[in-house]
């Protein structure tokens, strides 16, 4: 299993009080499995990604990524884990404006200290996979929203992650492009054998998921996809 959370609780200070962002969350996502997490704003979806992505520490409970427990890891060990085992796809793609499409991917190889030739081969392969070979020299502002998200996916896969964390990938896309991106995520999850967690507001993509989970007030309820789809259609 590539992601395992057990009885995870996260709280944040809010004035004189503390708000509970994650409340006793237990979930496992296996390699090759894509789990969609839905829920209203402020329900704790982004916190779930932050904890799974070693960006925030759990207040209690255990989190492990690709068999590595996160508890007790220092900042540099967390950095290394994110570099080598975790891929992020962000809401707005979050591509660096000065980098071309190819460079967005090569940056990962550079950070990881890989040989440039090997990085270039891997980047070429991934850009072909997401259908952007013809646009490898373009910069983010020269791409459509869907293309930017596909670059984001390719970048996230560049380091051969065990865990792919995806934050609202379709929020800025129309239905057709959103469907393309979600379909691609489902495909690469199966091909690259990543454990993929996708946070989304959009219930129309539920059929693409292997599993569906719903966040509500920090609590996570894992549902059967068919039941979740049925509930969404009601």
């Amino acid at each position, binding site marked *: 299993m590539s992601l395992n959370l057990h009885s995870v609780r996260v709280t944040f200070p809010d004035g004189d009080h503390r708000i509970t962002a994650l409340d006793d969350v237990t979930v496992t996502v296996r390699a090759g499995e894509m789990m969609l997490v839905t829920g209203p704003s402020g329900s704790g979806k*982004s916190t779930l*990604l*932050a904890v799974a*992505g070693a*960006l*925030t520490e759990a207040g209690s409970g255990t989190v492990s990524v690709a068999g590595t427990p996160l508890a007790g890891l220092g900042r*540099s060990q967390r*950095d*290394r884990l*994110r*570099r*080598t085992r*975790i*891929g*992020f796809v*962000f*809401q707005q793609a*979050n591509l*660096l*404006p*000065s*980098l*071309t499409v190819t*460079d967005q991917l*090569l*940056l*990962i190889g*550079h*950070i*990881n200290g890989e040989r440039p030739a090997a990085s270039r081969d891997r980047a070429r392969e991934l850009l072909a996979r997401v259908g952007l070979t013809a646009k490898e020299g373009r*910069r983010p502002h020269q791409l459509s929203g869907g293309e930017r998200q596909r670059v984001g996916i390719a*970048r*996230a896969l560049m*380091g051969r992650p065990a865990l792919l964390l995806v*934050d609202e990938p379709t929020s800025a896309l129309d239905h057709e492009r959103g469907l393309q991106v979600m379909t691609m995520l489902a495909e690469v999850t199966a091909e690259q054998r990543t454990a993929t967690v996708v946070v989304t507001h959009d219930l129309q993509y539920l059929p693409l998921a292997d599993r569906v989970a719903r966040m509500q007030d920090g609590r996570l309820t894992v549902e059967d996809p068919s039941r979740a789809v049925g509930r969404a259609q009601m």
Partner: protein
Amino acid sequence: MFIAFRDLRYATGRFALVGSVITLMSLLVVLLSGLTAGLSAASVSAVSALPVGSVTFEQPADGSEIDFATSSLPVDTVARARALPEVTSVHPLGISTGRVTKDGRTSAATFIGTDTALLPEFRSGTAPGPGEVAPTAGLAAELGVTTGDRLTVGALALTVSGVTLDTSFSHLPVLYTGIADWQQLAHTSTITALGVDTSDRAAVDQALGTRTTSREDAFAGVGGYTSEQNSLDAMRWLLIGISALVVGSFFTVWTIQRRHDLAVVRAIGGTPGYLLRDALGQAAIVLLVGAALGAVAAIGLGALADGVVPFALTVGAVAQPLLIMFGLGLVGAAVAVRTVATVDPLTALGAS
């Protein structure tokens, strides 16, 4: 510096702007350095050319500093100094200013009377004997004289025995002569100072009741030298400080503008060290290119201005202020970009 190079290519306008500012700062700093060195040479090159380690002045009055213009020593000070065991060589120095004329052409000059051991290298002719003088090349050209010509100083007519390499004192070209002739020119029976080689300056001063300084410290005895150099140095340092602030300000704004991008790099595994190296490398490139362009422009302008203004550039005069400017600029940039190490990768997920 993966990101740094690409940022430089992408945001060309912004980096060109700050690079131009650094170029202009560096141009000014190097021009000022050249001017400082040029003015220094015009002021004290006759002193710096003296082949002795020390200069002995009359003991200044309380609260006063050494001054070639007011120093006056009896002639027998030379013999008294020679008798001291700490002294290996002693030469009289007479320094005064006046006008020198040749066929209606008049020029202001500094008259330096001394013995042959303290004269600079000769371009032509020989050291002046009694009734003879040796102008510097510049003064000779100004007056249109060569070896064998006669010059008039006041009521005295003197023969040019030779022409020396250029030196100047207090921004005036020098006319060298023997100490006896100098005393006639200056209407005095004393001398101004001594050029001395000694192992113990304090012992010399104790024995003679004088003030002995190193040759370099004796520059302060040239009227206006210290205040002139201090003013120019203050301007140079101010410019260097301003350029450090400009660089720091630019990189502060630049870092703030791309905080979100930096958070993304942190989120995908970039370490604070990786970001710092990248950001500092970028600052170093901007500084280096800007400063180098400024230096090249300054050297070119200096070459054009040579002869019109006192301007002297050496490798040290160019390299030293540029290195300081580069170092301080990098410190300014380091202070500005240090915050990249504290960027929270969580903000890449939209956290505030």
